[in-house]
């Protein structure tokens, strides 16, 4: 069982559309894990039917136990998020502003503040219309994606893939290079970069490549919307070549990506040309993984 993680650095490059298309052409060889939990969109294209769900507890919030509080005000002074206010005769935590850092609980001389874990969202295991399983999650408003959440989604996908002897987990990673992305790369076999010819696209690609290099992963790249700024696409191509990262495809900008989305389909389902394009990309991925010549 191997993990292929699709990441982009910059958001909006077409990462999820491409992941969905690869999921379609790879058929029974893959299960899907949507780790872009802040903006999980795969479910829009795949019409999941929930088979299993589980509440997800992760972040902590400070709770003041009023019976112990002597109202010394130290907590309000140290809180960097202005999340503690004196209201209606007592100190209170603003649950939206509290970041859960725990400084107040640490410093309270009366031990009147404890950190309590709160529900951040739900984890789902779903059947999809493609006949493959999707592992995904949904956050409550204000909750954030985390390494822990990504690890939970990936672990349940891994567990299922192992039991059913499915060879690959296709992971839709999140933008950026932070904790959730590190967690999605950890334990992976191949990082597939989806980039676009924009200054921020190129810049963030370089950052995400630096991160993936640290994890000694196999790498490959796709330039999406390549014809929007051909000169920059060429520069990205040269950069990839210097880094020895194979460029699997340069996909021109097309409204068909949006068209497919409106129809709640993956791009690979639109016509035979797209199917072949993505099938070709998938075959190249298997070759890079050393699984197919």
């Amino acid at each position, binding site marked *: 069982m191997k993990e292929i993680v699709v990441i982009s650095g910059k958001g909006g490059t077409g990462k999820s559309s491409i992941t969905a298309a690869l999921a379609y052409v790879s058929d029974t060889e893959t299960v899907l894990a949507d780790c872009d939990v802040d903006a999980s969109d795969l479910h829009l294209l795949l019409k999941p039917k929930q088979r299993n769900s589980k509440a997800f507890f992760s972040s902590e919030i400070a709770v003041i136990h009023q019976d112990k509080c002597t109202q010394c005000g130290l907590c309000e002074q140290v809180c960097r998020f202005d999340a503690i206010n004196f209201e209606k005769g007592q100190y209170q935590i603003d649950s939206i502003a509290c970041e859960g850092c725990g400084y107040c609980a640490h410093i309270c001389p009366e031990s009147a503040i404890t950190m309590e874990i709160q529900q951040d969202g739900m984890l789902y295991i779903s059947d999809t219309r493609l006949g493959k399983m999707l592992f995904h999650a949904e956050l409550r408003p204000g909750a954030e994606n985390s390494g*822990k959440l990504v690890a939970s989604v990936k672990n349940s996908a891994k567990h299922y893939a192992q039991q059913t002897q499915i060879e690959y987990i296709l992971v839709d990673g999140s933008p950026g290079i932070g904790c959730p992305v590190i967690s999605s*790369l*950890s334990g992976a076999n191949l990082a597939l970069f989806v980039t676009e010819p924009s200054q921020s696209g190129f810049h963030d690609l370089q950052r995400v490549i630096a991160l993936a290099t640290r*994890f*000694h992963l196999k790498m490959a790249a796709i330039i999406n919307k390549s014809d929007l700024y051909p000169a920059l696409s060429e520069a990205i191509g040269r950069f990839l070549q210097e880094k020895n990262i194979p460029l699997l495809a340069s996909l021109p900008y097309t409204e068909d990506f949006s068209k497919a989305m409106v129809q709640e389909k993956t791009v690979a389902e639109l016509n035979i040309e797209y199917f072949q394009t993505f099938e070709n990309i998938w075959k190249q991925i298997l070759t890079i993984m050393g699984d197919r010549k």
Partner: protein
Amino acid sequence: MKIAFTTKGTDWDAEIDPRFGRTEYLLLYDDETKTLQSIDNREINQKQHGAGPQTAQKITELDVQLLITGNGPGGNAAMVLEKAGVRILTGYANLSAKDAYQRFLSEK
């Protein structure tokens, strides 16, 4: 020398966990006293962020000199380990701890 392996189990047959921060166990081998010890690291799954640096801290507190793992630690965790003088060997995923140790010896 104390060697730490990131593993999915608690003995020599345990597979190397490719993950560093969220590894399930740390297997410790002291090649002077020839003793093997396992540390349960699964509580790390309760941590939302910073799994890497926290596992790195654990390793430095255990006075480890060599780390044998899979993908390797991320930037922050690697900095902690480097500052503490822990040597890091990556690319040992899918091997058992025993085979990983043998490979380390043969490549020494």
